[in-house]
Structure formats: structure tokens, C-alpha cells
């Protein structure tokens, strides 16, 4: 960990970003000040339906998530494994639309947790890139993670996120060249998302050995102070602790979806989600001392 979060990044953006750090930047800085990694939890909006997804997000925050990624369910999620595919499919079948996603963002931000949207690119383009950013900022969102948008294709996205002061999170992977790590990290604001392994979302028995090396390579290529958060395959407190030892944030998604899928009713689901978030929150606090 080095540098100061939220100065260079915020200074490069116009609009609201120029006024100070986003909620995301502040949350990552606060976790760092506590000497720990931040806990980032993912749930598709509208899973299992819009109102229930708000209850689940609230349980994630109560359990200890610092940052919430609200997924925008998409018909063709090529980066997701079977669990999140099923969750997104459930949300789409329930009729979830981008306005519903923004409603979940608003509810999530109202808990005080920094809130991002995670979305495939086509729904943003269809909604209108500028309009999407404006509406997300108005809903209290801090930024957007775009798993199938690379900086090479993101000119319009840079302008829209700069104009609204939103963070924009691109992904790096173990297969990324050093040049691409630098390019992608310089294009990112808020944090850069390090995919721990070559594969889709889903739980794994072990955290990939590639993750720690990727984080080190990314830090070497990134602007000083840009946080690096790690996702893919992290599904329990011990794994969260392991990753928290070298990353600025630990991202968990499938584990939350699993608990909702397994629960017979919403009450059971929120209890299980709260307990799981607490286990992970303990993990990210053990990482630096363990």
C-alpha cells in the first residue's frame, strides 16, 4: 500500500469528482486507514426480485460490506459462471430493468455503503452513455465496473464518467501484458479490478496462485495510490484473509448469490447473507495480522 487515494484520480475528473473523493474512494481510504482491505460484495439487482434484492443488499452492508456492486442483469453474461447466470436470469424473468437497477443503487447508497454498478456494455450504450452516468450519479452511485469494455474502446465512456465524476473500474487479468496493465490501470479511477484467475465468476476450492503475482505486477504498472481489488473465486473468510494480505479490496459475488438461491425464503436468505458478510469482514481484518 502506498500513496494517497483520491487526489490524482479525483483531480483528473470534472464535475462532482473535482469537488472531492467519491464515496468509493473514501471507503477504500477508510479501510486502508484501518490497516485492512475493504470488503466488496456483489448482487444482481432484481435477484430474486427488486424489493428482495434491496433487503439482501442491506443485509450485506449490515454484515460488514464496505462497498456494494449492484449487478445489471444481462441476457448474455459471458464472463459469469452458472450461479450468477442463474441469478441474472431470475432477475430478468422477474422483469428487472435499468431503472430498477438505479432504484437498488439508491437504496444501497442510502445505507452509507459506497455503491457501484457492474454491467456488461450493451445495456449502457442502449440506455445512452451520458444519460446512464447522469442517472447513476443522481441515484448516489460512485461508479461503474465494465467487464467487457476495455480502455481501447472507451473514449465515449471516459468523457461521460469525467463529466459526472463517476469512478470507472476496468479489469486486468493474469494474461494481461505489462503494457496493458499500465494502460488499463491509468484508465481506471476508484480502483482497478484484478481477476484472480483465468475463468468466469464462481467459487473455487482455492484462491488462484496467480492473484498475488497479478496484484504485484499491477501495482508496479499503475499510477501510485490506485487501489487494486481482487475478485473471482473468493468464497469464504479464510480466502478473504489470504487475499486481504496483498490486495486493497476483496470482491465476493457468487457466495452471496448461492446463499439467496439456497434459502427457502427471504428471511432465511438475509440472515445467511448477513452471517456470510460478517465472516468475510472478519477475514479482511485478519489478512494483515495473520
Amino acid at each position, binding site marked *: 500500500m502506498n500513496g494517497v487515494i483520491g487526489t490524482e484520480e479525483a483531480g483528473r475528473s470534472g464535475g462532482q469528482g473535482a469537488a472531492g473523493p467519491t464515496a468509493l474512494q473514501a471507503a477504500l481510504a477508510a479501510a486502508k486507514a484501518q490497516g485492512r482491505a475493504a470488503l466488496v460484495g456483489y448482487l444482481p439487482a432484481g435477484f430474486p426480485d427488486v424489493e428482495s434484492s434491496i433487503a439482501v443488499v442491506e443485509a450485506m452492508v449490515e454484515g460488514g460490506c464496505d462497498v456494494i456492486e449492484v449487478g445489471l442483469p*444481462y441476457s448474455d453474461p459471458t464472463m459469469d459462471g452458472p450461479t450468477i447466470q442463474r441469478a441474472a436470469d431470475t432477475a430478468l424473468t422477474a422483469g428487472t430493468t435499468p431503472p430498477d437497477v438505479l432504484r437498488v443503487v439508491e437504496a444501497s447508497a442510502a445505507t452509507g455503503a459506497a455503491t457501484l454498478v457492474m454491467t456488461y456494455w450493451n445495456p449502457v*450504450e442502449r440506455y445512452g452513455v451520458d444519460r446512464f452516468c447522469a442517472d447513476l450519479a443522481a441515484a448516489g452511485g460512485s461508479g461503474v465496473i465494465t467487464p467487457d469494455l476495455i480502455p481501447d*474502446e472507451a473514449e465515449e465512456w471516459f468523457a461521460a464518467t469525467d463529466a459526472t465524476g463517476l469512478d470507472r473500474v476496468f479489469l486486468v487479468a493474469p494474461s494481461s501484458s505489462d503494457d496493458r496493465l499500465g494502460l488499463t490501470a491509468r484508465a481506471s479511477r476508484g480502483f482497478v479490478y484484478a*481477476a484472480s484467475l483465468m*475463468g468466469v465468476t464462481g467459487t473455487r476450492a482455492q484462491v488462484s496462485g496467480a492473484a498475488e503475482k497479478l496484484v504485484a505486477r499491477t501495482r508496479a504498472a499503475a499510477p501510485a495510490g490506485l487501489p487494486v481489488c481482487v475478485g473471482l473465486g473468493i468464497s469464504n473468510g479464510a480466502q478473504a484473509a489470504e487475499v486481504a494480505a496483498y490486495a486493497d479490496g476483496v470482491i465476493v459475488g457468487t457466495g452471496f448469490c448461492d446463499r439467496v438461491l439456497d434459502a427457502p425464503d427471504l428471511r432465511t436468505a438475509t440472515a445467511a447473507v448477513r452471517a456470510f458478510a460478517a465472516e468475510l469482514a472478519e477475514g479482511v481484518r485478519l489478512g494483515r495480522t495473520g
Partner: protein
Amino acid sequence: MTSATPESTPDARGHYGRYGGRFSPEALIAALDQVAAEWDKARNDPAFHAELDALLRDYTGRPSPLTEAKRFAEHCNGARILLKREDLNHTGSHKINNVLGQALLTKRMGKTRVIAETGAGQHGVATATACALMGLECVVYMGEEDTRRQALNVARMRLLGAEVVPVTIGSRTLKDAINEAFRDWVANVEHTHYLFGTAAGPHPFPALVRDLHHVIGAEARAQVLDLTGRLPDAVAACVGGGSNALGLFGAFIPDPGVRLYGFEAGGDGVDTGRHAASITGGTPGVFHGARTYVLQDEFGQTLPSHSISAGLDYPAVGPEHAWLADTGRAVYRPVTDAAAMEAFRLLSRTEGIIPAIESAHALAGARTIGAELGPDAVIVVNLSGRGDKDVDTAAAYFGLVGDEEEGA
């Protein structure tokens, strides 16, 4: 050299005007770069062309003939109809041209495993064939719905040694098979090549697949000059993803006097919403790694496509077609299931050639072009595949299985 390739029209990052590009996860960028770099090397390597040309000649059976269809022409307002016979290729369609080239690239890249998607099974069978020939491991993803509709092609791929994986998520058709193949690729990219079957997807696939099919138009152009002493007035092809059409169009794009026609699957009619005509009935969006025309709802969710032809049943189209449509260089029109099936029956009865239902869309389109251009016109139609695989569908459609034919 029959497999010599044209200068590429996209920019260095695979854009055709506003279309194309790479909307892919970062994890795949290194692999896409590797394919692009290897293709750049191979296309300038005489040894690669010698090897591919030998395969095209001795294994595929190229050049494929250009057959004049005189009796069918009577139903095209008397225009001369010349059929480019890709149906006579080994494995029964144009697909083998692309597959042999990419299988050679796979070996050049030192990869040992190939994955592919298939809808009707033509690309899957061609890929399984090339992998058997070259000793590559082969896994084919196929929507569960399609494995049921095309059970014989599943058996054929398995006979050839391929593993066929039914995809049970989403609409369980071609688009979901592609989604699943991308998921496999990102996890196994170190030793696996994704042998993409059409001129769509992220750069460099649209250009790579087009280039490997360029042989279709290059041969046809020489053949039509030889036969008629002049260039054709029009060339016609069916368009799903659009690989056979780009293969034919490529050699004629520089000839301003040659009209290019792409015929999309109109299904029950574009106004019914049950169709696969992405250019006619879709809107620009991003799908399967490229910006192009997509069938999508107001929120950007992909809409289900429909066509009687499994090979055209895809909710998007290759980005170069989107660009050719916007620039006006090519014209795209929908052909309904009914018109395609009528042309299917007509060619069978007038020429003794049973076309693939995909190709029957181009034949139906040729009838309308013939009516517009008049009896002096020369029209080249890409007969992209043969109809053996479609006999079940046709028998059900025309009621051929019982005691009496009902017609439709």
C-alpha cells in the same frame, strides 16, 4: 494461389467505420492479439498458403464449380443464374474453408485443443473434421435445443472424435453456445484456440473468417468472366453471421457495377417480430464482442431470433455487413421462411440440387433480383451448403412423410 487474401478493410483495431472492434474481457485480449499476429504472419507466408491451397484442392475439392441453373432461371424472370457450388465441398458447405485455415493457425500457435460453437451443426462438423485430420482435441458447444433438432449432426461430430457439449442455459441455441464457448476459452486459453465459425465476434475474427472464405468470390469472379465474358450484374448470398456472403462479396467489392445482395432470415415476417433479420429489423449495439446490428429490446437485452434455418437463427450479424449496409455498398433484404422453402423446393425440382435451407434464402432473393434486373441480367448465387441435413425439416414442412403431399 487460390487462398490469397485481400487487403483488410478494417482499421488496425478491427473497426469498420463505427462497427466491429473488441468488446471482450481483458483476459482474452492477449489471445486475440496472438490470433491476429499469427494470421498476419501466416497470410504473408508462402509456405502457409501452399499448405492451405493443397488442402483446399485435395481434401475439400476446390475449386467448386459454377453451375448455370437454366430451368431455375425460368422462375427468375429469365435472368442467368449461376450457382457457386459450395455445397459440393467436403462436409457439405462453405464452412470447411475457414475451418482448415484456422486449424492450421492453431498448430502454428502451438495449441492442441480447439473449441467451437455450432447451430445447425455445419460448422461443428467441419471443425470436428479438421481436428480429426490434424490430430487436435475438439470440443463443440451446441444449444440443447439444437442438439435435439440436429441429432444426426451430433452423431456425426462424435463419430469424428469430437466431444459435443449441450448448452442448457438461456435460449439453448446458437447464441448460448457462443457464450459457453467464450467461457471455456477464457479458462483454457493457454492451450485452446476458439475456432470461431462466422465473420462476427471480436477483432480479428470478422476479418480472419472473411479472408479464409475469400476463395469463394475469387474463384467465382474468374469463373463468371470465363463463362460469360463479363462481370455479373449482381451477386447474392444468405446472411446469418455472414461468412459465406463476405466470402463471395469480397472479390466484387472493388467492382462498382456489381450489386451485392445479402438475404437475411425473415422468419414469419419482420413485422411479426419472429425473425432473424438483424440489419433489417435490428438496431446498432454491442454483442459477442463487436459493435454491429443486434436484435435487442429497449433495454439492450438480446431478443430471441427465429428462422426455419438453424444456420441463420442468430440475433446479430458480422460487423463488416453492418458497415456495408450503412455505406450502401451492399443491400440487405429479408426473406421469409415461406419464400425460402418455396425456393428450396423449386431448386430441387428444376435442377436436381437440394440446397441447404440457409442457401435457399439466397435463391429466393435471386428470384426477386431477377424480376427487378430483367432477363439480360447475370446473377451469381452462393449455394453455401447442401440440404441433406434439412430433409427432416422439409419433410415436416411439406408434409412428405404421410401418404400424400400437402404442400405449403
